[in-house]
């Protein structure tokens, strides 16, 4: 009886690990493949027999993409657009999230719901009207315009996320600060923001990653080198170089590096529980 129970558990464990390993391969496999490809010589990439582990390692692909294409420019544009998007989101979204979290006003629920509904429309549907609007105000092919476009669909998400963090900061702390001599805004900045700092960082990183990786809007709203971001630039290289696999892979690796770094930051800050001790417990 006990014996068979134990055996059943062993079988279940093996099955669990099998599924997990399979899924991990599926998720991480392409990235490992990209890394390996970026380190191969062009001649070793397309071969008769598959070469999984490169026999010869080279960094030529990295040098090539950084020096022989507009890649640094693309990365620079991406950095600018991402920075602008995050700045706009933090400046406006923080205030909005605080208002949603603390004030009861007419249309509050509907507005919050509206934010979600906006997210439900596929980006493809919004892209044409957005393009028309952007052209109308002369923001096509500008980094600021692209940042505004990103804000339009990332801000609702940011507000929703941040509202959750604000909700978990005890209201009594603000009441205490207001009695101690703060204004409402002062209490938010001095008391609530430090408490929600982790949430703010996490939400901002989330926004940053989304803006960094975005492709569709960037493809439609940028036309020239001046504002093109790396996902679009990388895609356009496919034609320019007749499928330079190694260089493309190197570009991919360089582009996801910032994302990996940012994620490392989110992980660390999200775990820290700063609110401990505010309330009894």
């Amino acid at each position, binding site marked *: 009886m006990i014996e068979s129970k134990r055996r059943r558990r062993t079988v279940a464990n093996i099955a669990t690990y099998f599924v997990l390993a399979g899924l991990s391969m599926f998720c991480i496999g392409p990235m490992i493949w990209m890394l390996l490809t970026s380190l191969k010589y062009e001649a070793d990439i397309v071969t008769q027999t598959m070469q999984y582990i490169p026999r010869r390692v080279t960094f030529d692909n990295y040098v090539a993409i950084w020096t022989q294409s507009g890649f640094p420019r693309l990365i620079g544009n991406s950095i600018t657009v991402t920075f602008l998007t995050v700045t706009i989101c933090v400046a406006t979204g923080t205030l909005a999230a605080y208002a949603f979290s603390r004030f009861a006003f007419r249309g509050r629920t509907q507005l919050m719901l509206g934010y979600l509904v906006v997210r439900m429309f596929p980006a493809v549907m919004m892209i044409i009207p957005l393009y028309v609007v952007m052209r109308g105000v002369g923001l096509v092919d500008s980094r600021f315009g692209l940042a505004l476009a990103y804000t339009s669909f990332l801000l609702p998400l940011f507000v929703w996320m941040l509202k959750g963090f604000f909700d978990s900061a*005890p209201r*009594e*702390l603000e*009441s*205490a*600060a*207001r*009695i*101690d*001599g*703060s*204004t409402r805004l*002062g209490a938010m900045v001095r*008391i609530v923001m*430090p*408490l929600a700092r982790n949430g703010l960082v996490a939400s901002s990183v989330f926004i940053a990653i989304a803006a960094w990786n975005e492709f569709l809007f960037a493809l439609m709203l940028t036309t020239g080198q001046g504002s093109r971001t790396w996902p679009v630039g990388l895609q356009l290289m496919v034609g320019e170089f007749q499928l330079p696999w190694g260089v493309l892979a190197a570009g991919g690796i360089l582009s996801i590096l910032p994302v990996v770094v940012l994620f490392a930051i989110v992980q660390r800050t999200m775990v820290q529980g*700063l*609110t*401990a*001790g*505010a*309330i*009894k417990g």
Partner: protein
Amino acid sequence: MATLSIKDVRKSYGSVQVLHGVDIELEDGGFLVLLGPSGCGKSTLLNMIAGLDDTSGGDILIGGRSVVDLAPKDRNIAMVFQSYALYPTMSVERNIGFGLEMRGVDADQRKRAVDDAARLLQISHLLDRRPANLSGGQRQRVAMGRAIVRDPELFLFDEPLSNLDAKLRVEMRTEIKRLHERLGTSIVYVTHDQIEAMTLGTKVAVMKGGHIQQLADPRTIYERPANIFVASFIGSPAMNFLPGRLASSPSGVRFAANGVSVAMPAGKRQVDFDRPVILGVRPEELKAVARDEASVTGVIDVVEPTGPETMVTVQVGEQSIIARLPPRFAGRRKEPIFLAVDPASVNLFDPDSEQRIDI
């Protein structure tokens, strides 16, 4: 130090009215306790005094100055919260000094004020710690330190002891009383604990359903409750209620019920005889006596010795009452018991309106 006047203050959320025209006057240096069950509006009233909630009508004056249009920071009050609401990112010292910091007091002066308050509350050794590293009682003291350091006109306490364990609660209660007597600042104190209300208040407002049921000093509230709700809310074990009738007899007016016959003191006011009334008797006003002195006759149901006294549940007719008798009371279950009542200590209530009848 200042007086507090609450004049016809009302509060409604949409169509729901939670406070119906509350009037309270608190003398300079007084200690007002707002007492009532959950949802009676006591915390709402406190928040409106603090300015954290808007009033829907009426006026609130602190030291003769109307404050309803002022922000909380401009009312010159300090508040101690149930959760203590210490700023978790700041040290104890900065927590206590935060109000002074906000008011632009310079660092030296601030340090001196914080040190004084810390010494008064015996938390000087904790100044460098964060709130997370304090025990419940220490947090409570820090919260009080943050209030007293500003020397406000009025202290507000929102159930400050309800998160503490029983022993610490008694200690801190004494501490608050000592603090009040030492500082002399007016205090408004919200609680649902009747012991806190009785021990601390110079004035107690018993609230229920957004109305003040009775506003008086603790002694009056205890001995002459305005209605059955107040009578049953204050006191533990609760006051005994016996339904019966008022009847005239050769020896004067008597209260009579099954197993009960209590002579009423000669009153100034004329009351209707032969009407149904409810007699209210505190458990400690009942004494075990010989049969011929008894005004209440019953059968012992439960005997519970607690140490300093013995609680005896007695079946009187269909009613069950509790008597607080001396520790060495020797009665047993099912035995008859004879109890006497001091007529001066009883209260009569109207069964319909549940209001007290003056006799």
